[in-house]
């Protein structure tokens, strides 16, 4: 047995409360993010059992899935959405949990709010009733999505009963080609390992191309770990991480910040630590990526073609390609850069941060959204929106014909009014292209913010580097 450990091993070991007779572990949970969709039944469960929230100060709540992204002065008009959001506010109040309402400029998508506020820190265990909790792994935290029963368990006990996953290393060697973003890297990863490739694993992303990413880019990569089937994805923290945290409202300050850095530095994976599985991808091989089908593994490069099911030997795969082509309304062997779009959605916990919007503004500046396209930009939080407006990005977007909106999950999953109509085709910076994900019958192509912006301008999927 080696004493070299991965960052996952270290965080796991430092959070073990006790080991049960059946081999499961009670793991301490440092931070818990709560949103309106997956929490009402958990709070109801506590009430029925007469239980209390053990650590309200370790819990942060905000509404994101259901909130409108326009005409906010009218409030939430959908009665079911309103009830869910009101229920969260009431539950937070009754349990002394900090709640950021729509009227608070810090409100936004939980996975954008947590990092912004310094709620997310290296070495922590973080959970949320939301699969994209893996986003927080960018800080070298162990963060994963849970169901509502586990939300209730966390609220009541500040722990979860867990079994340890295996370690996977995904190494992106070399430097990314100019114009290739974190989104392209993670789509290339899912293309390679598949949507079940990470099942049973926690993925650690390493290599020069990962190291060179900003915190925002790292969040994009870790965010989509769940699309590769992994329980969580993380990146050992470094100077980029510590710099990002400095001065955040909930980050340690002064001497505590210095002490924390010493601790955070100790978290990085030891040289020679054992991984159960290692995958290497050369950054040189990655150009802008997009999805053509209805699974996040249905990825091609922008200079590629829609696949032909007759070339597939595996019967199951053949059937699923045929089903996806039918749903997407695509012909085999079509060059993907000829596919026309009706809508563009820029936002979500994957790509709704300020750097994403800056990248979009560079492409939008001095150009116009194609007449046939409706293109919306939804900032990930009120603070992202405020920052973008401070930098004048909103003017660039509006002048170019983009629809500049208020923060929320929006058309990533279409729980509010922002959704695709049947057969509408969308260039989207979100994370899932499942059937019906952005609205029943809607057709989603996933891509980077730059690529989505280029699609808005040309009206079809486009390599933005050619603009």
């Amino acid at each position, binding site marked *: 047995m080696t004493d070299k450990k991965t960052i996952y091993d270290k965080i796991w070991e430092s959070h073990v409360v006790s080991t*049960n007779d059946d081999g499961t572990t009670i793991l301490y949970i440092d931070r818990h993010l709560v949103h309106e969709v997956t929490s*009402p039944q958990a709070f109801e469960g506590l009430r029925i059992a007469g239980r209390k929230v053990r650590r309200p100060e370790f819990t942060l709540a905000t509404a994101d899935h259901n909130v409108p992204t326009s005409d906010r002065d009218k409030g939430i008009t959908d009665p*079911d959405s309103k009830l869910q959001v009101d229920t969260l506010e009431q539950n937070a109040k009754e349990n002394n949990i900090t709640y950021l309402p729509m009227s608070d400029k810090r409100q936004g998508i939980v996975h954008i709010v947590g990092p912004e506020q310094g709620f997310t820190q290296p070495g922590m265990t973080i959970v949320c009733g939301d699969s994209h909790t893996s986003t927080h792994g960018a800080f070298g935290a162990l963060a994963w999505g849970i169901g509502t029963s586990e939300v209730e368990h966390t609220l009541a*006990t500040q722990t979860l009963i867990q079994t340890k996953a295996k370690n996977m290393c995904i190494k992106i060697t070399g430097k990314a080609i100019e114009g290739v973003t974190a989104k392209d890297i993670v789509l290339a990863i899912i293309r390679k390992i598949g949507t079940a490739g990470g099942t049973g694993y926690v993925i650690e992303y390493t290599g020069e191309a990962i190291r060179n990413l900003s915190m925002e880019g790292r969040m994009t990569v870790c965010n989509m770990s769940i699309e590769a089937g992994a329980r969580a994805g993380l990146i050992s923290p470094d100077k980029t991480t510590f710099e990002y945290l400095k001065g955040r409202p909930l980050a340690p300050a002064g001497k505590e910040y210095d*002490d924390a850095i010493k601790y955070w530095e100790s978290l990085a994976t030891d040289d020679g630590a054992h991984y159960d599985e290692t995958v290497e991808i050369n950054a040189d091989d990655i150009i802008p990526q997009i999805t053509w089908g209805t699974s996040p593994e249905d990825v091609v490069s922008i200079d590629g073609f829609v696949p032909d099911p007759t070339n597939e030997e595996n019967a199951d795969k053949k059937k*699923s390609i045929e089903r996806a082509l039918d749903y997407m309304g695509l012909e085999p062997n079509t060059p993907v850069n000829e596919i026309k779009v009706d809508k563009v959605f820029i936002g979500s916990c994957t790509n709704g941060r300020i750097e994403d919007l800056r990248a979009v503004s560079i492409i939008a500046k001095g150009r116009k959204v194609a007449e046939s396209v409706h293109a919306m930009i939804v900032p990930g939080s009120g603070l992202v929106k405020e920052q973008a407006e401070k930098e004048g990005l909103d003017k660039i977007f509006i002048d170019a014909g983009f629809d500049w909106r208020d923060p929320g999950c929006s058309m990533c999953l279409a*729980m509010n009014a922002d959704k695709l109509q049947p057969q509408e085709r969308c260039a989207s910076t979100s994370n899932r292209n499942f059937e019906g994900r952005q609205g029943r019958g809607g057709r989603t192509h996933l891509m980077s913010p730059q690529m989505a912006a280029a699609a808005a301008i040309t009206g079809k999927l486009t390599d933005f580097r050619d603009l």
Partner: protein
Amino acid sequence: MEKFNKLSGHAIPLRITNVDTDMIIPKQFLKTIKRTGLGEFLFFELKFDQDGNKIDSFALNQDQYKGASILIAGKNFGCGSSREHAPWSIADYGIKCIIAPSYADIFYNNCFKNGILPIILDEKTVGRLQDTAENTLNFKIDLEKQNITYVENNEQKEISFDIDPAKKNCLLEGLDDIGLTLNKAVSIGNFEGNQEKETPWLYGNKLT
């Protein structure tokens, strides 16, 4: 939670791989604040077309599968979101056991919190069971013995399955996880005391 031990019933073959949680329960039904009543919306967009007409070719709409309590599905079942509405809708519909070659991690764990037994068998066996299920045969599932039995062509068949002992026990006993963990409140308190000493910056900061 309801205990799971033995189950006897018909099975529905669902021959789609990578069935995601958006397929299982579309987002328009996530706006509830209750756990119950989601069964009628299970696989809603596979059951009904955009005009609300029943899609006859979909197994759940076929009379022979009415009242079935077992679902035999393709690999990577339940991928996508963490919504527990997925297992809630499955249980509320009356399905207490799923058989598939593999599951997405969060969905798999969620099943055990809701009295649903997710059995893992190799792809070939699952395919064979899907064929068998089309003849509306009765399957018997025994969690204690970890086997599936049925009669085909007057022959008694038995397939055994593996399951993690802790998860098995959880279903057999219908345990209240939270109650059990709360029994360890002293250990949790001790952990917090030590953690506060070692990493004090994790304590005391709260947003206002």
